[in-house]
């Protein structure tokens, strides 16, 4: 009985210590603004419509010889998408001949509202250059893409700030949880080239 009590006490102390350690780790982590995780996502075989009314098969489109970056946005988004898109815009500005060096993909999570015309205007606002495409589609296909990237939200207002990166020829997608500045995004881009 005594041994059992000791074991219970020991386990309790261990649990408390682990809990404190976890809090401490999280507190330390507050210094960083984002988190990276790696995933083997399977991109669904869905056909989406671009801002130029070009139909593309998404799984084929992301099979690029360039690094690919992908995010989920919508045209009337309040806070998250403007920052994500300003990040894309600045990345294109910073990368000489960006259209040859990275493929930027934005996927609408408000396909009812985001027609090709709405998406085109949106890209113009962010001075998008060739190499950045914005896609819409049926609600069913958009949901399938969100699910494939483990980013499904039942409603656009539950949107989260995430972005996905993939090196050419790689099966691995790197998920960036959080919003990043250009310097950090460039650093992640450089890492993709090293892989």
């Amino acid at each position, binding site marked *: 009985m005594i041994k059992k009590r000791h074991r219970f006490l020991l386990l309790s102390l261990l649990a408390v210590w682990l809990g404190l350690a976890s809090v401490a780790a999280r507190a330390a982590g507050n210094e960083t603004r984002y988190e990276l995780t790696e995933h083997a996502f399977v991109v669904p075989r869905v056909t989406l419509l671009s801002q130029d009314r070009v139909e593309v098969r998404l799984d084929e489109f992301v099979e690029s010889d360039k690094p690919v970056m992908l995010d989920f946005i919508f045209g009337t988004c309040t806070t998250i998408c403007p920052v994500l898109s300003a990040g894309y815009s600045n990345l294109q500005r910073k990368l000489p001949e960006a259209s040859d060096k990275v493929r930027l993909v934005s996927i609408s999570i408000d396909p009812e509202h985001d027609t090709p015309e709405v998406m085109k205007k949106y890209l113009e606002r962010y001075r998008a250059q060739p190499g950045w495409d914005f896609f819409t589609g049926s609600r069913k296909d958009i949901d399938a893409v969100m699910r494939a990237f483990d980013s499904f939200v039942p409603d656009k207002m539950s949107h989260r*700030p995430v972005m996905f990166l993939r090196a050419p020829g790689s099966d691995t997608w790197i998920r960036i949880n959080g919003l990043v500045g250009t310097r950090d995004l460039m650093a992640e881009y450089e890492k993709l080239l090293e892989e």
Partner: protein
Amino acid sequence: MDQRQGPCSSRLLSLVLIAVFLAASPQGVLLAEEGVGDDLTVEEAQLLGERMYREGLLSSGEPMKAVVQGDIPVDGSMFSCMSCHLRSGVGSIEGTVITLPTNAGWLFEPFVGARMTQEARDRLPEHLRRSAFRPAYTRETLARALRVGTDPTGRKLNGVMPRYLLNEEEMSIMLDYLENLSAELSPGVSETTLQLATVITDDVSAEMRDAMLLPLQAHVEAVNSQSRHQERRSEAGPFYKEEKFTAYRRLELSVWELEGPQETWQSQLEAAYQKQPVFALVGGISTSDWRPIHEFCEEAQIPSLFPVTDFPVISDTDWYTLYLSKGWYQQGETVARYLRAADDVGPEDTVVQIYRDDRVGRVLASALRETSQALDWLQVEDRRLEPDVTPSAAFWRGLASEYPEAVFVLWLESADLAGIEALASAGGRPRYVFLSAPLLGEAIGSVPQEVRRFTYLTHPYSLPGEKPRAELATRQWLRSKRLPLTHERIQSEMYFLSGMLAGSVKHMRHDFYRDYFLDVMDMMRDQYYSVATYHRLSFGPGQRYASKGCYIVQLGDGPQPELIARTGWVVH
């Protein structure tokens, strides 16, 4: 799953960027020298401030410049203060990102999370009296927040908050604007009551009037019935729910009856408003053009929620009326989009639309024409049917001969489709025939079998049997209110409005600003289960037509044909 930590961006870098931008901005220097704020009237300064806040444009017309996330330069043409803090300034919630209020009522008070009266705070036990997260902003501390992103305590604001590059004059204009933004509660609200009105025009039948008005009145009665002891709770509820409970207001619904010619509606609306200022218009019904009521709301800045009209104003920029749909216009727009996507129709093909020169025909025809032009794809040829012309088999054969293998869009009722089966055997048979399901109404089964294989119909509502749960919910609600089911579409829309109104009023809490009412609606989740009439309704800042959809269907066999969807709800 591998987990790595990303590097931290340097705060120093953003400060350096700001300094570089300021130094490199000839415009900033110019404005400082000219002193644009010195000669402005209060009204002019407010308008300039409004333009900065809403459109991201400086008084020079140049976009405001800023840095987000430490090192991303942005300008006002990408997004503005309003994008995140919304028009009212009360802020937004998107996923895990909460944008705090930036209107006068919040900025210049200490921020303690929940808003409580001083009396209520004094009643709290000492250990529950939370100190403020930040003291009230002053002009100086607010300018600092806008420039370098720190609050009055020195705490750093989130990186998504832009650090703006503003000279003293521009900053002064912006601060003046924020000092007045949503500073006082809107007219039509008191400590106890929220005044609403609904507009009914004299062209509406008694049955349709009741279908709109009675559910609305039943909702008001339910809110006022105190079934959850709302007023008692607002006085004596637990402190942590006080903010929520004290937001309760009784509703008072005025009925504004408009009579006579449309040109007199504006003055009738103004007189009704003078008699009883209201916070918002809800519902309402007219079979005429809604434009005079729409324009009244724009001018008086009064929100109007879900009027029952097939003739809304189509605008990308107007703000104050939130419609359920684009009405008849949606169908013409959908045909244009469908043809834009069709593989077998191109700019070289002929599209002929035939319509009666009445209000419905003109709206449908202009929608197809305007959307086709906007898509820069098809030329549409208009044929108006003269009043003395009744189409027959000879008419249709002649049309097919004149426009062989064309696309016919027939915005006509069933009486005008007599003899249309002749198209099936005519030389030059049309490639597509489009009809409007709502125009055909109950006579949809009279479309001849011979033409059904190349005939498509616009159907801007949910399909029969598609939304049984929502239909059941509407009927049960009507039954609970002892209202007979008379006009399912209108009653379903009013049932939906009731739910949305209850949600939005509750969400406003103390912030009874008209702009915030619409901001709250804009942040509403997409609605699927709660509405029977439409497949899906969705919202968003500036989105003013909740339904964006319209099926293209074909008819099955027989006199009561099945509607077979050939597209999804939304046609891009």
